[in-house]
């Protein structure tokens, strides 16, 4: 009778078990989320991945596979391996694999891969989310365009928030002109108006309740008492507060759009997002027009995206071309001394170009590598050009 070897595919690697459930051979995934996700993706599509392949090859060299049957849970895998001349049997949840599945968290710790089971599950969580995002990409029809519309909507909302805040300040100043000076931040000002309304309601307690510090609450309440503003009717205040409330809703919507963009960008352009974050990433898509367009742009163009006006001016007048477009928002460029900015911008643009291409063509996640290489390059630039160039 043939011996049986049971194949257990797990998130940490592929294991070969004997009939007693003892590990006879194993090949682990690298502890790299991007790579692990790629491997798991193949398995979930019923394809033999490199780790499983390696396991089978190793078994071949160590065990007499002609007198051994591999037991595997997925029939597609079984078919593929059979075609390679390996004897394979499909079984649902044989007790050896079942037991292994039960012990996996413990085993993964014993193998020294994680310090405890919590850490194992944390890793599983991250891998699963990335794996799911990769699978979702298959259904990602034009989702780059959705991110683009969302980032443009943010710009529209910013314009509106500003317009309405200015209007509200003028308007509410008829009743309480002194508040305009005391509360400079739009959000605070409008929250006060929306939740308290009449200046008579501005007692310290109520102000503190909506998040004003005690000191300022006291000050506002004192000024309110002595205000030279006019008395308003309920209906006057109601309409002002209705406008104030819609402002707060818009402000809230802005946050929702930001969260939304983060989710979409992680799915459609994970590598660009890893480099510059979802918002700047979406702005780049918006300027290029789509992920495809961005992927096709040369790095030199990516570098000046969003500075088209300055670029055309330079071309027309023969002046200096701009060193960076919207990527100036990248903190490492903004914070760098002037003479380093162009160089960092070039480095970032080069990496962005690569990231956009991988995002567009394969969607594989190599963001961590790209990012660490970029940071390396930036450190290098900082070391090589610590001082401004001499003028001649």
């Amino acid at each position, binding site marked *: 009778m043939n011996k049986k070897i049971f194949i257990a595919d797990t998130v940490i690697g592929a294991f070969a078990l004997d009939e007693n459930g003892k590990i006879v051979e194993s090949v682990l995934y690298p502890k790299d989320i991007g790579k692990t996700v790629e491997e798991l993706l193949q398995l979930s599509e019923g394809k033999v991945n490199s780790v499983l392949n390696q396991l089978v090859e190793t078994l071949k060299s160590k065990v007499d596979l002609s007198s051994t049957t591999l037991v595997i849970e997925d029939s597609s895998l079984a078919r593929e391996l059979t075609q390679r001349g390996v004897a394979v049997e499909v079984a649902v949840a044989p007790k050896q694999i079942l037991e292994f599945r039960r012990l996996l968290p413990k085993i993964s710790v014993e193998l020294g891969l994680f310090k405890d089971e919590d850490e194992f599950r944390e890793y599983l*969580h991250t891998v699963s989310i990335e794996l799911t995002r990769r699978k979702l990409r298959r*259904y990602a029809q034009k989702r780059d365009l959705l991110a683009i519309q969302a980032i443009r909507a943010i710009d529209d909302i910013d314009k509106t928030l500003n317009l309405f805040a200015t209007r509200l300040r003028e308007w509410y100043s008829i009743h309480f002109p002194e508040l305009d000076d005391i509360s400079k931040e739009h959000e605070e000002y409008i929250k006060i108006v929306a939740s308290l309304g009449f200046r008579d309601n501005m007692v310290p307690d109520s102000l503190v309740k909506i998040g004003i510090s005690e000191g300022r609450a006291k000050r506002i309440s004192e000024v309110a008492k002595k205000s030279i503003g006019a008395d308003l009717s309920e209906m006057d205040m109601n309409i002002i507060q209705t406008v104030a409330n819609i402002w707060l809703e818009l402000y809230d919507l802005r946050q929702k759009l930001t*969260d939304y963009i983060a989710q979409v960008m992680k799915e459609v352009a994970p590598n660009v997002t890893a480099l510059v974050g979802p918002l700047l990433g979406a702005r780049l898509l918006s300027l290029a027009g789509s992920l495809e367009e961005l992927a096709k742009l040369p790095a030199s163009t990516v570098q000046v995206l969003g500075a088209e006006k300055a670029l055309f001016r330079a071309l027309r007048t023969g002046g200096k071309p701009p060193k960076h477009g919207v990527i100036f928002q990248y903190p490492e460029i903004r914070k760098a001394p002037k003479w380093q900015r162009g160089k960092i911008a070039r480095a970032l643009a080069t990496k962005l170009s690569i990231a956009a291409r991988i995002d567009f063509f394969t969607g594989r996640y190599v963001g961590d590598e790209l990012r660490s290489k970029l940071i390396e390059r930036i450190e290098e630039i900082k070391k090589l050009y610590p001082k401004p160039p001499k003028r001649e």
Partner: protein
Amino acid sequence: MSSLSVVRVYEHEKYRNVYIVELDDGSSRLATKNLVPGKKVYGEHLFRWENVEYREWNTYRSKLAAALAKGLKELPIVPGQRILYLGAGSGTTVSHISDIVGLKGAIYAVEFAPRVMRELIVVADERPNIIPILEDARMPQRYRMIVEEVDGLYADVAQPEQAAIVADNAEMFLKDKGWLLLAIKARSIDVTAEPSEIYRREIETLKSRGFDIVDIIHLEPFDKDHAMVYAIYNRK
């Protein structure tokens, strides 16, 4: 317009880790402790009481909440458990189970519709105990690499062969004596009326594949089409 004011909050007598929030309008709501304070999942109310934040568990939106409101024999979900959830949807019920099992627990949340998974992944992003799986519950082998042995199986799959799907998944992942909660279609307006033929057949399938039925609860008025089956699994 009017905001709801909390009179008091206390733990449910029968269902541990489920809370009752009494409001000043005389009504009361089921709730769970919010694992991620400040964050809502599906537009539910948030309540603060003695420095803890509770999330309303809407009996019209979650079949499990409805089953509790209707007096399910017991709630087998406890902190620290691992649970396989088939048909996770956009995360309404999943999020409350996530509140209950806590950070030491884990929910393997299987959902096949990309449209819906995009919402679930947002919830999973914030809740480390939710492990999202974009796969078809009819093919459990496709997620064998992710799911470990689980203490319980929750299923709400609206598929014709739901009992078989549940049994296949149990065979691969559910421990001996593990629990099953299955939301099963049982369209019968009259609570006392005989269940439909299909419904009876599904229950039979469950029994023949190792499940001991503990309780069956009809969910009206919260959900007119479903019943909740509570069972215990016996591995052969």
